[in-house]
């Protein structure tokens, strides 16, 4: 073009060849047609611009408050030596209450999440199924390598003489719905106000793993959390996450029943 230089499409500043941003005005090059655009000049795909959320910086505080409110009943149960099934259900319902309250507090950002999911690429479904299989394999690996640390999830139901249907409702359907509303609905949305989308998914997945209070299952719970967070961002809805979570919990219960 002009002897090794290009001109900024916005301010006309002379740029070295190949730079993406103008050194004077900071505009990203290739998004707008430059003043002296030659024929056949290729325009680059714009970098994805993050959607602006209404929560903004308050998101961090909202996410942390929601997390610690959900943590307290687990800590209380721990200090009381575990608690029984009805205590566990009460703790799940509190998580659900946090989810509903948080989603109402951020209703402008969370209302679209209750709509129908949009699957733009068929491949995403394959990735989701493959991801769940991968997480299950990770658990299997941990359970095989460290059998003494592995807790039997079905023990609590068998101690109280409950049947499989009750266990599936109590251990898969309820947690699937309330934890997804709370984590993918509230915590992830709030964190998206502070972090970029991908970072927010990883952070919310780690919080999801930490709140289970079992350091040895941190790895597979983080993987599951990332999968669920990605599903929520891809489809713009929490329902696919609810489905994945219920199926995942149900498989884990059935495998041990």
């Amino acid at each position, binding site marked *: 073009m002009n002897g090794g230089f290009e001109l900024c499409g916005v301010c006309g500043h002379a*740029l*070295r060849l190949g*730079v*993406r*941003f*103008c*050194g*004077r*005005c*900071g505009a*990203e090059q290739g998004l707008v047609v430059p003043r002296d655009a030659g024929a056949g000049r290729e325009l680059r795909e714009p970098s994805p611009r*993050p959607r602006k959320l209404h929560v*903004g*910086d308050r998101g*961090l505080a909202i996410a*942390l408050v929601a*997390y*610690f409110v959900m*943590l307290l009943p687990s*800590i*209380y149960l*721990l*200090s009381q030596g575990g608690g029984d099934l009805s205590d566990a259900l009460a703790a799940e319902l509190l998580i659900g209450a946090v989810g509903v309250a948080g989603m109402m507090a951020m209703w402008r950002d969370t209302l679209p999440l209750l709509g129908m999911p949009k699957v733009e690429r068929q491949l995403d479904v394959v990735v989701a199924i493959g991801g769940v299989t991968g997480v299950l394999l990770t658990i299997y690996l941990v359970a095989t390598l*460290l059998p*003494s*640390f592995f807790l039997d999830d079905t023990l609590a139901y068998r101690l109280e003489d409950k049947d499989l249907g009750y266990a599936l409702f109590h251990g898969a359907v309820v947690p699937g719905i309330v934890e997804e509303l709370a984590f993918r609905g509230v915590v992830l949305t709030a964190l*998206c*106000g*502070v*972090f*970029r989308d991908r*970072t927010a998914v*990883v*952070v919310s997945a*780690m*919080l999801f793993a*930490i*709140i289970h*209070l079992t*350091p*040895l299952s*941190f790895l597979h719970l983080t993987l599951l959390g990332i999968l669920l967070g990605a599903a929520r961002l891809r489809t713009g809805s929490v329902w696919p996450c609810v489905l994945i979570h219920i199926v995942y919990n149900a498989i884990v219960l059935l495998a041990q029943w």
Partner: protein
Amino acid sequence: MTSCPKCGAQLAMTDQFCGSCGANVETELQIQAFHQPALETARKWILAIGIIYVVSAFIMVAIAGDMMLDEDRNLLYGVSFALCAIHVGLWWWAKTAPFPAAVVALVLFITVQLINLAAEPSSFYKGIVIKILFLVALVRAVQAGLEANRLRGQR
């Protein structure tokens, strides 16, 4: 020629923005001077705490190991090594993303302390100085990360 404080690409002296990553050079210099140190301190603390978990598990077993059941000792080692592994992971992640890593480390730390408080209230004051120093370092890192985001006008 100078280089970009954010990505290290070469810049002309007159450039106000980096041609490679688009960062505002003045803002990045300000962040590097005032906010980066807190984030880097927190990163070192994250590694230190991870090591402390394992070391304190060994010390506890050395002192009271005779009175412990094999099961309890294995659980103590398992949990400590898992926590250490998580912290090493966070330390590694903090090289590229110090702010989110500091948030996760802060939440993990408070959670572990609450569990300790519920399970064994007497252990709360053990190593209280280190606990407070770690807490302060992480809170400062989170503040610095928030402030840096605000300066960059991004999330």
